[in-house]
């Protein structure tokens, strides 16, 4: 990644233009041609830096429910439990986390989405039943910030 790539990503992060030729607008802002912008964006995608460009849905606005949950998974069962969790479409994020100063052994942290509360608690109880492990549920009560805008200005080259 060079400074032009970063500039392109920065431009596209917050608002990708809803216009007929969005890459032309992005290219102008970065001081390059539309063709070059397209080529660069394609290689950022091929290199796995850019996951996708497009609408990011707000599941809540669509009436869906979600929660953060955590499980204490014994090390030797990590792969097996992860595979089960990940097989649910409603499980969108799942991380193995190191609990440095945690008072408990919660190490698998995941987010689950569903159309309604019944479906959501169904997913969690099925996970508990099939793993014989407890899933601690931490429902959101207030959102202060959701954003995935990274400050790319200081990112190292390459």
């Amino acid at each position, binding site marked *: 990644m060079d400074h032009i790539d970063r500039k392109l990503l920065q431009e596209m992060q917050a608002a990708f233009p809803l216009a007929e030729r969005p890459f032309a607008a992005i290219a102008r802002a970065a001081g390059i041609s539309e063709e070059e912008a397209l080529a660069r964006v394609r290689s950022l995608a091929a290199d796995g830096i850019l996951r996708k*460009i497009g609408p990011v*849905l707000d599941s809540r606005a669509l009436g869906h429910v979600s929660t953060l949950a955590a499980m204490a998974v014994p090390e030797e069962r990590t792969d097996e439990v992860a595979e089960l969790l990940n097989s649910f479409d409603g499980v969108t994020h799942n991380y193995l986390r190191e609990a440095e100063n945690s008072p408990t052994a919660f190490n698998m942290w995941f987010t689950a989405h569903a159309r309604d509360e019944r479906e959501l608690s169904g997913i969690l109880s099925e996970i508990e039943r099939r793993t014989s492990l407890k899933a601690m549920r931490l429902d959101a009560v207030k959102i202060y910030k959701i954003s995935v805008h990274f400050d790319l200005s200081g990112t190292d080259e390459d």
Partner: protein
Amino acid sequence: MKIDDKDVELLKATQDGLPIVREPYAAVGEKIGMSESEVIQRLRGMLDAGVVRRVGVTLAHRNAGFAANALIAWLVPKDRLDDAGNSLATRPEVTHCYARKPAPGWPYNLYTMIHGKSRAECDSLIREMSKEVNVGEFVVLYSARELKKTSFRIHS
């Protein structure tokens, strides 16, 4: 907000990403039998209504140079929860900031996600954050392995 069948069809056609071509909205429209202007108009409508949070890029942050990410669970006195949440949310390194209901044996009530170039960078940031909101009780959960990361999707 109520969205109609055509909106759903459009979201399904774009939720995995727009094609990286000169006229991406026209390309999407062609696939689902919608004019370019209708595609743009419907996306704008859903953006204004909040169903679409934003139209933009989704980065694989690890590959974009953010090697470390930590979820920090804070134990904040109830009467200071909003102040702490609002204050931590203003930091650019904080991508998510939620108040959550504690669970039995797990009293933490405020959750922040931070991304940094290294653990050392995150560590010093966390010290700053702790000082800023005057909360000394917290758990730092560094991501050791990404097991799954997808976007919320519309199914069936």
